[in-house]
């Protein structure tokens, strides 16, 4: 089994102060990644499956108070592999 991706990076950073607990991010997320707080009006949403994010940015785009920022992991900014690695199967 390969030790593929680090699954811990959280791509969806929610500013607790700005968030108005409106569940829109939960509703628009195409991957069921963001789950509204248990008490929707009080608890902030939870990024439940961060490793499954598409980086589509629908949540960031839809947030009525701009409380969401998409943050890319180091491995996307500075990739660990090259295309040649993938073709050679290293």
């Amino acid at each position, binding site marked *: *089994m*390969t030790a*593929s*991706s680090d*699954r811990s990076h959280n791509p969806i950073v929610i500013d607790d102060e700005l968030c108005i607990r409106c569940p829109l991010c*939960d*509703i*628009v*997320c*195409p*991957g*069921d990644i963001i*789950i509204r707080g248990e008490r929707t009006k009080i608890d902030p949403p939870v990024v*439940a*499956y961060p*490793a*499954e*994010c*598409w*980086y*589509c*940015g*629908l949540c*960031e*785009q*839809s947030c009525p108070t701009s409380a969401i*920022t*998409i*943050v*890319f*992991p180091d*491995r*996307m*900014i*500075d*990739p*660990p*592999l*090259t*295309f*040649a*690695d*993938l*073709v050679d*199967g290293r």
Partner: protein
Amino acid sequence: MIGEQLHTLETDVLVVGGGVAGCIAALAAREQGASVLVCDKGGRLAWSGSVGGGVDQFLAVLETEEEWDQPAYLMASVSQLTDGLVDLEVVERMVYELPRVFRRIEATGVRFRDKGADSYMRHRAFGLPGAYHVDFDGKKFKQTIARAVRRSGADDLTRCSVVDLFQVDGELAGALAMNIRSGDLYAIRAKACVLATGDVNRISRNVSDMPFATWHCPYNTGDAQAMALSLGGVLANMEFIEATLGPTGFSSQGTNALTGLGAHYLNRQGERFMFKYDPLGERARRSVLVDAVISETLEGNGPIYLDVRHLPAHELANIERTLEVDRHTVPGFLRQKGVVLAEEPIEISISEFSIRRSGVYFRGSGVVIDASGQIGIDGVYAAGDCCTVSAGIAGASSLGWIAGASAASYAKRRTSGAELPAARFASGRAALEELFDERRTTSYWEFEDAIRETVTRDVGFRRSEEGLARAREQIAALREMETELRAHDAHEASRIVEAVNIRAMAEAMAVAAQTRRETRGSSHYRVDYPAVDDAWNQVLGLRRGESGLERLVGPAEGPWKAMWGSSPVETDDVAGQGR
């Protein structure tokens, strides 16, 4: 966790997948008076599917006075555009339906023209013989058609994965579906069904090793293709891969827009190399650009850069906005990376690959359909990127309309639907419940990583007999691992369903790639058979047999439905058998 609630539903037409194809199919079926239920894994139809976040062009034939703007004129080029490997009968139906479907979509409220403008902004792209693409601000395209679906009286079931389809005595009976968050189960009786779950992703690795950070929607995992195989349908063109070019590290849209503006491709030496590959340079067909970047990289001339610094100031000023329409997060990625496009060339790379349409308009990979959208199984239809004719949202819309209307009229002809087969429904349900057995120890992502590692190495950009044989063995061995897959909640259970479908698609791809002993551009490159072989001017189909996948062949330009009842090819020497 699973099935604490069991809901029973009944509909004339069940639509599996609520992207563009599924939504337009729903509208067509409603217009025929059929009751419709749309199932989608996303949270709301308004934002679900491949273009839930927006889209910026629509391939349209509008029958204006322009000579090229007629269906027949476009059809005359399809054979050349697809290297003669496409079901012309189905493409023809799709193209001839386009003008009407375009107006129908416009009537839902989609604004294809800027406010106050009396004509469409159209441009020529992707090697097509006319300016067919309508440029428009499609940020709300999906929201608008989803609203029309709701207004039409169709029902929808979102966050729902259709896990199984059931037939009784050769007739469709219905489906088992699961809410991917609550685990509630649905027993859905249906007289007809439209499959529209899109392409196959998460099947290969990218340079960031981020399996979900993909170019196409990572939640499209070949669900329809796998169900079609189970029902006895035929898949075709499964050997071909599709990849794109994006900023290194982020498999995304955007380079098309930059190329369209006139960006230059540079190699490590700073050479504008595209003219080595095509006299049109950067204006060559898209698949030529991708092929050239692959060759240049493998020859050691990478990294490759896109340079826009020579563009006029007003275009540079808007360049972020241009990129943002197709993929909202690209400007943020460049900011975090510290790249300013107006000041420096940006490094680009080849993305992971998916199974969709081998980078070629109309040449889809997936479920074989006929000109009515039917898949060779009574009452079952398919449309969009999961079927063998694929042309972006235009193809999805036109075929969606055709499939939805056909499904509705089939449902109308059936006096009553069949009861769901109780025993098979129960075993489908039990299979989901077993995923929670604590003796199971393998996570879906370990399983998927193993698929991706094998497929990327041996079924990818460069293929050989040795590698493909090894891949087939490993992919077959992974099937044994499926009984070890463990879910802790309904969400994970739905990912396991997807992972199992991805493995089935990997198997189909490996079998097809091993069988086609020739090379067809970079979408199927055999290092041991590096040339095009004319004897291979034929389509390769796959059907589930008693001992694995059966291989079928048919005429390159169709009709591919000829493969539905045909006998499997027993020999490994398949070239020339389909003509």
